[in-house]
């Protein structure tokens, strides 16, 4: 973990005074005269702004393009015209496209769409729920199983069975593909530093490039259909899989490797018998993160006809139906929670299995074990450790138990193939009690509530938006966007040098050159303004919530589920309420970004606060610290690492929302990316804006990282 200062280009004094809390990193800077240097840069900047105000800003009109943009358009036109006959576009990509489309359609007919000539899928809803329940129980235990059953029943109750299952299918296919590609890549990277050095920047780009920017190019290559959705999802979901695998394999202790080597293991044996088993739990975490990333692409993939719940969210957005968007959004959140908890439980179980060779069969497994153990043959049981009366199951025995449970599951699958009501999820016409809880009811509830709420507070929130924009955002934006481009370039370089030394200066210079080359300098500066402002808001919120959560278990229990929900709910769901409360403006874009970034930052701060050693806290308390002193003088300074990491992650999450911000009045790069996706002649400009966002992200991330190293301890 690393440590850094405030979000790089923000004048630190502003951060400190705004937060009204003594931030440790501001104090630290003094030793290196960082404050004085930053002030010097600030004065230079102000003078240049006054002299050259509004000159050489490189502003570009909405519909204007540069030769670079036209060149990108030219490439697109060539691919469109010659693609089908080209060996790569028509041949390789075409083959991949056909393959995934076929796999997807096969699975769809099995569980989600009518399999001709049947009017329903091969396996009906009851069968699918039964199978999922069995899988959940077999890999993850009772708690996860209950979650699986409830979530999957809600798919049907809310009337979105087919789209929910389609989303699961896309996610599963994408994650399986990520696993097949990511595992070997991760292993290769863990073994060879050179590979790692080559692949890491590619992963960085995959994670920072806004998906909107490559939406049109991917659709161009793979056509319109499930494959495009799967490929889009993979681009975003692969990096966590690879990174976490690499981390897991690297994390196997050297002593273990040495010991194994002294036994004469070959490289292959080492991998299969030592490294992979020991990294198993981390790899499952990789699968988990990959799944979460995959789900977050649901609404975006739906823009190019990707199957799943994203379609419902987008359709509801079109007709301004907050309730309908929420219903689909809730199901996406529940799907995420279901997959998250199930894979986490599976990883915990696989860890305990790796250690003792015997799993702790939980819940119904334990109960069932009681029933069958006495009747099992010898090979299935073994004597458990001391103090445990009941004999435990061996691995084979466990599978026998699981196999027994498969019988009722298959019975249900059989019924679901025979009976219409078990094949097609019943509606309120079939089962009248559903009218109290089904999708229509929930939609109406949410709509009524949001209308009432918006009506009560919108004059207040609009005034708040005006004040904050006029007094904070506009002045900051004027300073950044109305300075000549070379002034800004120098200022950013100077910030990079003062905060992080020479190494980030090189990255900054390269990124600046790229941004300049995209022809979107001015728009990038406006985006930067919003990013800085949003990150400051994120950190203020994260510190307040994180301290509360870190100090108080009950606050944690209350707040954490809300954070989880905001992390997984598609931002499209809350765009309409945000627009109603704050109007189409940059501030709304900032609010959307803050809503998305606060959860991760808050969780990191809370972990940091909780990580402060209890003896230190006890000692401070014995010295008579007040609660306020405890927080500001002990707990926050001691969790500096976590604060810095939270800032870094918050910043990246904010940047990933730039494009969504473009949909609600954020303008600048986000809007350009969206218009590039919508207008034929702006394709190149949109792609260029995507590149600019990526460059901006890499630049800010590197400055923050090196600054973190420098001011680390």
């Amino acid at each position, binding site marked *: 973990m690393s440590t850094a200062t405030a979000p790089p280009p923000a004048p630190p004094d502003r951060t400190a005074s705004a937060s009204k809390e003594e931030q440790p990193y501001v104090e630290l800077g003094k030793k290196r005269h960082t404050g004085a240097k930053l002030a010097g840069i600030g004065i230079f900047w102000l003078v240049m702004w006054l002299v050259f105000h509004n000159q050489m800003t490189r502003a570009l009109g909405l519909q204007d393009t540069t030769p670079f943009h036209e060149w990108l358009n030219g490439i697109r036109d060539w691919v469109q015209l010659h693609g089908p006959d080209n060996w790569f576009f028509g041949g390789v990509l075409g083959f991949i496209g056909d393959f995934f489309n076929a796999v997807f359609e096969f699975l769809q007919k099995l569980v989600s769409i009518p399999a001709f000539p049947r009017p329903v899928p091969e396996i009906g809803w009851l069968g699918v729920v039964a199978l999922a329940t069995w899988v959940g129980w077999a890999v993850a235990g009772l708690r996860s199983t209950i979650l699986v059953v409830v979530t999957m029943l809600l798919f049907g109750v809310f009337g979105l069975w087919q789209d929910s299952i389609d989303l699961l299918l896309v996610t599963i296919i994408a994650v399986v593909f990520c696993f097949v590609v990511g595992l070997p890549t991760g292993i290769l990277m863990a073994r060879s530093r050179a590979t790692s050095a080559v692949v890491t920047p590619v992963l960085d780009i995959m994670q920072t490039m806004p998906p909107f920017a490559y939406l049109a190019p991917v659709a161009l290559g793979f056509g319109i259909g499930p494959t495009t959705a799967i490929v889009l999802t993979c681009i975003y979901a692969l990096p966590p899989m690879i990174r976490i695998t690499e981390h897991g394999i690297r994390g196997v202790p050297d002593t273990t490797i040495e010991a194994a080597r002294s036994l004469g293991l070959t490289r292959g044996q080492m991998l299969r018998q030592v490294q992979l088993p020991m990294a198993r739990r981390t790899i499952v975490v990789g699968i988990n993160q990959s799944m979460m990333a995959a789900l977050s692409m649901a609404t975006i993939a739906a823009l190019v*006809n990707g199957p799943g719940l994203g379609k419902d969210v987008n359709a509801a957005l079109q007709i301004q139906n907050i309730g309908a968007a929420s219903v689909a959004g809730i199901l996406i959140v529940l799907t995420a929670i279901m997959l998250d908890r199930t894979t986490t439980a599976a990883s915990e179980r696989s860890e305990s299995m790796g250690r003792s060779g015997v799993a702790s069969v939980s819940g119904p497994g334990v109960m069932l074990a009681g029933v069958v153990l006495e009747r099992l043959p010898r090979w299935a049981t073994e004597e458990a450790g001391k103090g445990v009366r009941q004999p435990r199951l061996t691995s084979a025995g466990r599978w026998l138990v699981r196999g027994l449970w498969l019988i009722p599951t298959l019975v249900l699958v059989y019924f679901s193939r025979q009976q219409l009501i078990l094949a097609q999820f019943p509606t309120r016409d079939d089962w009248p009690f559903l009218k109290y809880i089904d999708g229509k009811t929930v939609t109406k509830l949410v709509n009524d509530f949001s209308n009432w709420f918006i009506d009560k507070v919108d004059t207040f929130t609009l005034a708040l938006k005006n004040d904050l924009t006029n007094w904070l955002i506009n002045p900051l934006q004027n300073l950044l966007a109305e300075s000549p481009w070379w002034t800004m370039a120098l200022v950013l370089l100077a910030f990079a040098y003062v905060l992080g030394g020479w190494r980030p200066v090189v990255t900054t210079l390269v990124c600046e050159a790229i941004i300049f080359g995209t022809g979107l300098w001015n728009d990038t500066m406006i985006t930067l303004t919003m990013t800085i402002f949003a990150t400051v808001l994120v950190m203020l919120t994260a510190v307040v919530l994180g301290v509360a959560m870190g100090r108080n278990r009950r606050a944690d229990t209350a707040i954490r589920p809300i954070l989880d929900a905001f992390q997984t709910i598609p931002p499209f769901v809350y765009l309409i309420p945000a627009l109603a409360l704050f109007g189409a403006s940059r501030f709304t874009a900032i609010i959307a970004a803050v809503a998305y970034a606060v959860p991760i930052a808050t969780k990191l701060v809370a972990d940091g606060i909780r990580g402060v050693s209890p003896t230190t806290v006890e000692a401070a308390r014995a010295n008579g610290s007040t609660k306020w002193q405890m927080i500001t003088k002990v707990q926050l300074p001691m969790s500096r690492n976590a604060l810095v990491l939270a800032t870094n992650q918050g910043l990246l999450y904010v940047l990933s929302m730039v494009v969504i911000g473009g949909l609600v009045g954020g303008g600048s790069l986000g809007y350009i990316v969206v218009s590039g996706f919508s207008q034929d002649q702006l394709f190149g400009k949109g792609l260029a804006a995507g590149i600019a966002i990526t460059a901006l992200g890499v630049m800010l991330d590197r400055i923050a990282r090196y600054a973190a190293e420098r001011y680390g301890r």
Partner: protein
Amino acid sequence: MARGTSRLQLACVAVAVALGLTACGSGGIKDNPSGASGGKDCGDLRIAVNPWTGYVSNAHVIGYVAKTKLGCNVTYPDVKEEVGWAGMASGSIDTIVENWGHPDLVKKYIDEQKSVEDAGPTGGKGIIGWYVPPWMAEKYPDITDWKSLNKYASLFKTSESGDKGQLLDGDPSYVTNDEALVKNLKLNYKVVVGGSEASLIQSFKSAEKNKTPLLAYFYEPQWFFSEMKLVHVNLPKYTDGCDADPAKVNCDYPEYNLNKLIAKKFADSGSPAVDLIKKFSWTNDDQNIVSTYIAKDGMSPDDAAKKWVDANPDKVKAWLG
């Protein structure tokens, strides 16, 4: 303990069996007779669905008729216009059923590549322009003339437009001349981009409710007009060729004769749906009825299409004749 659980296990199986048995009453699953009603061989029909509700109405009414009368297997890929055109060229989409001009795409795909064909007008008229909420037109009757826009510029000031009036642009799907118009008509306004149709509609809703001023780019036909009668601001009249040079535009947007497009490959396939698409024609009002069913009454697009088709058998018959 052991005994209790074995009972539980039995109970589970019993419930499962019972569920299966009770379900028997509701009848088993019978295979569909091959093809649907029509009897003709129609095959697949893939109608692109562009992201606005008026379009959804066109697509689902055509789709509903194709499915029930011609027995086509209809699917509705959700794509933006540009992607839809590209899809027709590459063969993954058969038709676009409401096209707004797009001279650049017409040139590229119809004139040069010849991969797309014009399938005639939808009968709808597309109007693009600047609109104000109803309360403003009532309070400031002369605001519908562009010449008085400068007089009211200060009303339209927002946090986004600085000391100028705000002209809110919305859906990035459309080519707008608004920046050039503001400049060439010497208006003291700044174009602010809302970024989506949703942001435009929500802005009009808030403006009407709170009686705040708003001037924004909008378009008809649009279901939202059935909820709020926005008032069109008249710019200098459109004359042929006045928008030839995008930088020098100083006139209103032309009225669009909305049309349908059909992929060349599909047109040559001999599917009966080709005729249906070519003959399909209705009015803005027809479309608004279906759109209102969808957007305001919360009906599914298919149900809305069925309701309209059932109520208008004559119009439908003309498309099939």
